[in-house]
């Protein structure tokens, strides 16, 4: 036994234990009011399958347009493959969750190429107009269509300023088990919600990194330590049509 000797006065080991215990208990601001740290909670990887999503997370995507190559289609291809968006060879009606948009400044000739998908707005107009409640925003900011409730009226497609949604005109077969899709409903980018719930990033983000572009950063905008939050804080980024006040979760840098 190595008991405390009178010369030592205090045990540093015990002191460390006590300070750690105090930190874990949270900071008491006033009697009955305790501030708990929330740094560990809120990341998707930490969420158990039985836990619901919470608004402590806001998923967001940052696209660095300078790194997005003209002619590269890796994100679109990955989206089609991941979600089983096999078309019928009719581009007018085939589903499109993400598309590449080419911009050109006519006065200077400068060109820009960027991916455009559902912007996962904080105030989504598609949710406002939906007559059945099928179009909804999940607590973590992902905007989805509950196809069980969708009646295919397509109000949301009219309301969306980004033309992000598609209506399924024809019978769909051989869907992916994690991405159910069917005729008569509206659908759009889900941020690959099935992957996000597993703690992974959307297929487009992964494909962009694999293709060497590394133009897309996905993460939690509410977590100040996430890569996306640090980038958004360090650089000037743009939302598309910020004048509409929708606060999209997708941001663009060097636009």
């Amino acid at each position, binding site marked *: 036994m190595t008991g405390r000797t009178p010369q030592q006065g205090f045990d540093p080991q015990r002191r460390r234990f006590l300070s750690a215990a105090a930190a874990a208990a949270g900071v008491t601001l006033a009697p009955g009011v305790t501030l708990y740290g929330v740094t560990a909670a809120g990341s998707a990887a930490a*969420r*158990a*399958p*039985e*836990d*619901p*999503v919470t608004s402590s997370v806001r998923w967001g995507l940052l696209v660095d347009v300078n790194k997005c190559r003209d002619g590269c289609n890796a994100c679109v291809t990955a989206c089609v493959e991941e979600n089983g968006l096999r078309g019928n060879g009719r581009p007018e009606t085939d589903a499109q969750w993400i598309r590449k948009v080419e911009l050109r400044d006519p006065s200077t000739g400068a060109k820009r190429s960027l991916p455009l998908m559902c912007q996962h707005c904080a105030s989504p107009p598609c949710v406002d107009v939906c007559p059945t409640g099928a179009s*909804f925003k*999940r*607590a*973590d900011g992902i905007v*989805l269509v*509950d*196809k*069980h409730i969708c009646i295919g009226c397509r109000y949301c497609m009219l309301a969306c300023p980004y033309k992000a949604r598609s209506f399924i005109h024809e*019978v*769909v077969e*051989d*869907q*992916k*088990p*994690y991405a*159910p*899709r*069917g*005729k008569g*409903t509206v659908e759009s980018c889900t941020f690959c*919600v099935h992957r996000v*719930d*597993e703690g992974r990033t959307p297929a487009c983000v992964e494909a962009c990194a694999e293709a060497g572009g590394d133009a897309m950063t996905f993460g939690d905008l509410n977590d100040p330590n996430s890569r996306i939050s640090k980038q958004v804080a360090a650089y000037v980024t743009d939302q598309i049509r910020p004048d509409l006040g929708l606060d999209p979760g997708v941001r663009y840098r060097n636009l």
Partner: protein
Amino acid sequence: MGRHLVLALLLLLAPAAAAAQDSDAGRVPLPTIVKGKGEACVADTAYMRRYHMTELDHQRDETMHRGVRTRKFSLKECVDCHATPAPTGGYVSVNAPGQFCRSCHDYAAVTIDCFQCHAARPGETATKRAGEFPRTAGKFRQESEVQ
């Protein structure tokens, strides 16, 4: 005329009766119950027969709106266990005639809408996953991680 009708009905029902497995009820045609993987379903057979849609409905709202992805009453898990391997490789759709979902639903004259949108065959990842976590009788393991 009446006798002809009875004969026609008997002729119609004959293949269904022949397809019924372990049917000791004689003339009553019973649905073919294809055995699933593993030793037992996630709940008692009697409970699953009566309440599977209630549970699926509940699970669908939980998963869709709240992001809860437990596997016990997930439709994906039903398909993973109850789809039978096809002789040519891959799996037969659970919605194909005589298969697990369809045979009962045909018998009860209830249409299945699930598979208009949902996959009726296990996917590649799902198949792999089902092999990784074998079920045990009477209980369903709630994995802390979803692959």
